[in-house]
């Protein structure tokens, strides 16, 4: 048996002062941050007119509404709802595809390894950022002004909003690609276009396909709400039924949305698995 070396606690304290006696600033940092967070929270609750009575009242109302929602019942409007759901899925699919098609060439312009000059890259990136800063619903309102009420405005809104997101994601995928293959193409005498087509694209296309599938999924969710401002799809029905307090229909519509999103989730998961293989999915 080896003997344990005997160390005086006092000596340890002296040897590691930062462990035993941390400076007061670092000891106070966490409580101070928590206190600040709490202070802003309290200020926010007061400023946004939170009150216990309103909360209790509202929860009571909410309980009443939930009771009214049971059982979910579409009444006689089931065919209309199914059509609206189809419209929503169409909006998501078309909008995402359009966005991906337009974003691919632009994302090349925003990628560091394709366009080395920051002067060209910078405006493209800021342009994409500003598109991303505007919510899909706002784009829907703008497009309604242009092509009128209806699902087509929704398609265009999703296409524009996702164009910004895709541009950023794709350019990041392109920047993450291995440069060696591009150099190989260049060494064998390929032009810049050849470098992109045969050096970059085979590497990034599976990644991009995975992202597009993921967005179709998340856009099914976005597409359900753009109807609230009048851009087609199931959101229109939902907002209408909420306004006229037909709670059974509301709960049925919400159920429909949940089922549709789960179905798309499942399908796109399978497709992603088939395209990229197990490694990239996990």
């Amino acid at each position, binding site marked *: 048996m080896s003997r344990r070396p005997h160390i005086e606690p006092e000596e340890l304290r002296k040897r590691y002062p930062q462990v035993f006696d941390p400076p007061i600033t670092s000891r106070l940092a966490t409580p101070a941050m928590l206190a600040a967070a709490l202070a802003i929270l309290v200020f926010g609750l007061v400023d946004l007119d939170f009150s216990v009575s309103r909360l209790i009242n509202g929860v009571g109302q909410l309980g009443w509404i939930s009771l009214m929602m049971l059982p979910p019942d579409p009444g006689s409007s089931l065919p209309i709802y199914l059509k609206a759901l189809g419209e929503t899925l169409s909006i998501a699919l078309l909008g995402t595809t359009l966005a991906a098609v337009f974003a691919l060439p632009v994302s090349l312009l925003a990628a560091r390894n394709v366009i080395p000059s920051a002067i060209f890259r910078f405006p493209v990136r800021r342009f994409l950022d500003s598109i991303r800063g505007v919510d899909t619903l706002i784009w829907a309102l703008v*497009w309604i002004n242009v092509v009128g009420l209806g699902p087509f405005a929704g398609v265009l809104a999703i296409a524009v909003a996702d164009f910004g997101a895709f541009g950023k994601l794709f350019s990041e995928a392109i920047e993450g690609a291995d440069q060696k293959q591009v150099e190989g193409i260049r060494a064998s005498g390929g032009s810049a276009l050849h470098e992109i087509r045969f050096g970059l694209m085979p590497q990034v296309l599976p990644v991009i396909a995975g992202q597009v599938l993921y967005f179709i999924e998340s856009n099914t969710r976005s597409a359900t709400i753009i109807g*609230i401002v009048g851009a087609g799809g199931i959101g229109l029905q939902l907002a209408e039924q909420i306004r006229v307090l037909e709670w059974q229909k509301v709960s049925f519509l919400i159920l429909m949305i949940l089922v549709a999103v789960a179905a798309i989730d499942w399908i796109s998961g399978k497709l992603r698995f088939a395209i990229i293989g197990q490694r990239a999915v996990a």
Partner: protein
Amino acid sequence: MTIAVSILPEQQLATLNAAYRKAVARKRLRLSVGALLFVAALLVAAIGAEVNLRTLFTYFGNFISYFDRILTLDSGQRVWTDFGEWFWGWRKWLHLLGETLLISYVGTLIGAVFAFALNFLAAENTSPGPWLRFAVQRLLEFARTVPGIVFALIFVIAFGLGPMAGVLAIAIHSTGALGKQFAEFVENADMKPVEGVRSTGASWLSCMRFAVLPQVSAGYASYALLRFEINVREASVMGFVGAGGIGMELIVAIRKFYYSDVSAILLTIIATVFVIDIATGWVRGHLFGKEART
């Protein structure tokens, strides 16, 4: 030195070539069938969404000129010639913008607290029982799948018009989203410390507090900040349904064709989102080191 390239006998080459062609042909077939299916789905979708290219081309000029119009003042001059006139309502807008930020802050914090309370129950390795886990997971899924603005629509009726409905809607949606991310984080945590703490006879709660929490708290904060960034965007449209924030002012401006107001409000929103983006990125980078930034 001569370079010798060995040429395979004709027969062997023929079989190899045939196998290669077959493999390529099969791949091509699969690809073209997939592409065909996709195009068919697009066509069906185009009919379903009432896509009308003629409308688009006829009115596309409107889209461009819309941006021209929102950049023009009532007097017919460009907006940037007269900032005072362009941002005439800056006091009101800044106030509403502050309200928007507060809505997303309070909503994110409440959501994070609830997600924190629920996530240990939803994670596979720490959940006390499979039934509880199933129930909590379904609850989180529900909260995350129903869009925030739908909650807002319902809450506006239950709690009355105003920012409170927006806060609660964002809080519920954040609970769902953060609950899932937190639980995934816990599932990736090292279980050895948990065993160590449990072997001392600690309760479930102590195990979570002293073995899991120190591993995951930095990740939690990082995800919560990211969610805050997303919620600022979300809160900017909550006003569309009367749930507070700058959205109310924006939808009025768009609907009533107050063109220069639209551009002014949009610009303030975009600028705010930029600043929040950069600020949260900076905070995350500084608080949690490089690895937490992704």
